[in-house]
C-alpha cells in the first residue's frame, strides 16, 4: 500500500554487517566538540564509521558535484586539484566536476576514474580579483538552476588553490554543509573577522556568531546550495548598490547567512586546513588544505 506522502523516499534498509557496537559511555574524553548546539554533527576523524556510511549511502546512487573557479593565473592549480580529488574525493561515488574559467584552453586534461566527469564552463574574467571572488555565488546559483540540478544530488563549492591529502567521503554529505576556518577555531566570536559595519548586509554584531566558517568549502543538497548561494548573492548585490564591499568578500556574506540559516552539518578544520599552520594534536587527519603560494602575484 503506497502512502501519498509526496517527495520523501523511505530510509533504505542497511544490509546486515559486522561492525563494533557504539560505546555509549566513553572512558576517554573526545578532543573536539562533535555536535553543535543545534544538534548538527561536527565531522572529524573518529566520529564516524566510514564502512557503515558507505553501506548507507552507496545504494542511493548519488552523484556529487564540485564547483571550482580557475580564473586568470589560478588555472595552474587545476591539475593538482583534480589529480588529488581523483585519489581522495568521494571514492566509489559518481562525481561531476564543474570547472569555471575564463580560459578553457588553459585547463589541462586530467585522467578521471570511471563514473567521474569534468565539464569546463567558460565565464567572464575580471581585472579585479575581488570582483571574480564575489561573482562566484551568482555563478553557482545560476549554474544550479540552469543545469546542475538535473545532474547532481549534492554539490560542494571548493576553492581551486587547494589539494586533497586524505579521504573525503560521504561523512561530509548533508542538507547544508559548512567548514570551520582553520584560522579561527580557537578564538572567541568577538575576534572573528566578520563584517562589522552595519551598512553592509553581511554585518554581524559583537554578540552573534557560532563558528567562523571558511569560504573555501561549503555545500549540501543541490536545492539548499541554490537557496544559500542565491541568498548570499542578493546580499552582495545590495552591498554593491550601497557602495560597500564586505571585509572578506563572499566569505563575509557566507558567514552572515550561516548564522541565520544554520548548517545541518559542520566540517572540522580537517576539511579546510592551512598547511602553513602547525597541526594541533586535536586534528587527527588533514584531508583538504591550502597550497603555499604567492597570493600577491596570483591576484595581480
Amino acid at each position: 500500500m503506497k502512502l501519498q506522502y509526496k517527495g520523501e523516499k523511505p530510509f533504505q534498509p542497511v544490509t546486515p554487517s559486522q561492525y563494533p557496537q557504539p560505546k555509549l559511555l566513553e572512558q576517554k574524553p573526545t578532543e573536539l566538540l562533535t555536535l553543535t548546539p543545534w544538534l548538527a554533527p561536527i565531522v572529524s576523524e573518529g566520529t564516524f564509521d566510514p564502512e557503515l556510511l558507505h553501506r548507507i549511502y552507496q545504494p542511493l546512487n548519488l552523484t556529487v558535484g564540485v564547483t571550482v573557479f580557475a580564473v586568470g593565473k589560478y588555472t595552474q592549480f587545476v591539475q593538482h586539484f583534480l589529480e588529488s580529488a581523483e585519489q581522495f574525493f568521494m571514492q566509489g561515488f559518481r562525481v561531476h566536476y564543474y570547472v569555471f574559467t575564463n580560459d578553457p584552453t588553459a585547463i589541462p586534461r586530467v585522467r578521471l576514474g570511471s563514473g567521474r566527469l569534468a565539464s569546463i564552463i567558460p565565464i567572464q574574467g575580471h581585472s579585479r580579483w575581488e570582483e571574480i571572488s564575489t561573482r562566484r555565488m551568482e555563478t553557482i546559483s545560476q549554474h544550479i538552476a540552469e543545469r546542475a540540478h538535473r545532474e547532481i544530488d549534492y554539490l560542494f563549492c571548493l576553492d581551486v588553490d587547494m589539494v586533497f591529502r586524505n579521504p573525503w567521503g560521504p561523512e561530509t554529505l548533508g542538507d547544508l554543509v559548512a567548514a570551520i576556518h582553520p584560522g579561527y577555531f580557537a578564538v572567541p566570536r568577538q575576534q572573528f573577522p566578520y563584517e562589522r559595519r552595519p551598512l553592509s548586509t553581511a554585518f554581524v554584531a559583537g554578540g552573534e556568531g557560532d563558528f567562523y566558517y571558511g569560504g573555501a568549502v561549503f555545500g549540501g543538497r543541490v536545492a539548499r546550495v541554490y537557496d544559500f548561494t542565491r541568498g548570499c548573492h542578493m546580499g552582495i548585490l545590495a552591498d554593491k548598490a550601497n557602495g560597500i564591499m564586505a571585509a572578506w568578500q563572499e566569505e563575509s556574506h557566507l558567514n552572515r547567512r550561516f548564522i541565520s540559516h544554520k548548517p545541518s552539518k559542520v566540517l572540522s578544520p580537517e576539511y579546510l586546513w592551512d598547511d602553513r599552520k602547525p597541526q594541533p594534536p586535536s586534528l587527527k587527519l588533514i584531508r583538504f588544505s591550502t597550497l603555499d603560494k604567492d597570493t600577491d602575484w596570483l591576484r595581480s
Partner: protein
Amino acid sequence: MDPREFWGKSSKFWLCLILLFAVLLGFYSNVFSLISTWQREESQSQDTHSVVLQRMQPEKKESSERDCHLDTCRIPEVPRLVYPKAQLLKPTRVDVLVMTPWFAPIIWDGTFDSAILDAQFRNITVGLTVFAIKKYVVFLKLFLETAEKHFMVGHKVNYYVFTDQPANVPQIPLQEGRQVVVLEVRNYKRWQDISMHRMEMISNFSQQRFLREVHYLVCLDVDMKFSDHVGVEILAPLFGTLHPGFYRGDRQSFTYERRPLSQAYIPRDEGDFYYAGGFFGGSVPEVYRLTMACHQVMMADQANGIEAVWHDESHLNRYLLYHKPSKVLSPEYLWDEHMLQRPPLLRKLRYVAVPKNHAEIRNR
C-alpha cells in the same frame, strides 16, 4: 532572478531547440515553476514544498531527501538570538557518547540549546499518541497534566488518546494551541496484544489523519509521567530511545528476539542499542512506515505461531537496526526510578515510570 534572463543568455539556435525540446518533454514548465516557486514566499504547507521537491528531482534522487527536516524541507531561518558560543575544543559532554557512528545525535542534557532549536522548529505541530485501554485509563490524568507542563511547551500539540472508553478520558485544562483528540478503538483480551496492536492502530490513523494534521509523531507509553523538559530537541525524521535497562550493556546481553523463526530475530553479533518500545517517533511518513512494517511482521509471526519475546519492542529494535534512526534519545527520556539507581551521567529525568501493580492492571 527573472527566468527570462536565463533564456536571453542563450543563442537563438539553442533557444529554439531548447524550447522545442522543452515543450515536448514538459521540461520548460518544470524549470519555470521551479524557479518561480523558489522565488515565491516560503509557505509553511507541506504541499508546496513537496511539489518543489518532486519537480526538482526525479525519482532516483529523492533518496537524498532523508536528511531534510520534514516540516519545511528547507533550512530553517532563525532570527537574531543571544546565546553562548559553542567551543570546538571544549566538548559539552566527555562522559557519554553524543553522536552515533552514523551521525545521529544522542540527546543528553548539555548538548543542545533550546533557544536555537525552538526558533528552528517554530510553527510545527507535534502529535503525541498514547494508548489508554481497559484499566490503563487511570494513568491519563497524571500523564496529560505533566505533559502540559513539560512536553513541547510553546508549540502546537495534538494529544491522540486511543481508548476503548472515551467517557473515561479526563478533562484536563490545556494551554493554548493544544488539544486532546479521543480515538475510540477496540481492546484485546491479552495485554501483549494490546501492546502490539498499537503499531497497527498508529499506522491506520497515520494515513487517515495524522499526515494532514501534524508534522511529527511521538509515540508514548501511558503509564508514565513527565518530570522535566521534553522539547523539539527530540524531533527528527526517525528517533528511538535508549532503554534504561540496557544502555550500559553489550549487544550480546540485549534482549533482542534470538529465534531465527521470528521476523524480529537479531543475531548475537549485531545491534547498536536496545531501544525502548515506549518512546519512539519521527515524521509522520517515517512513523507510518515503521508502524506498518512492524504490524506486518507481527502478523507474519502470528501466522507462524511465534510471538517475539518483548512483543512490539522486539520488532521495533529490528526495524531500527536496519533503518538507523536520525536521533537517539538518552535514558533521560525514559527512566524508572524504582527499578534503577540513577547514575551521575543522568543529569535530568524527563519521562519516568509511574508505579503500577502489574498483576492488577493487566488482563482485567
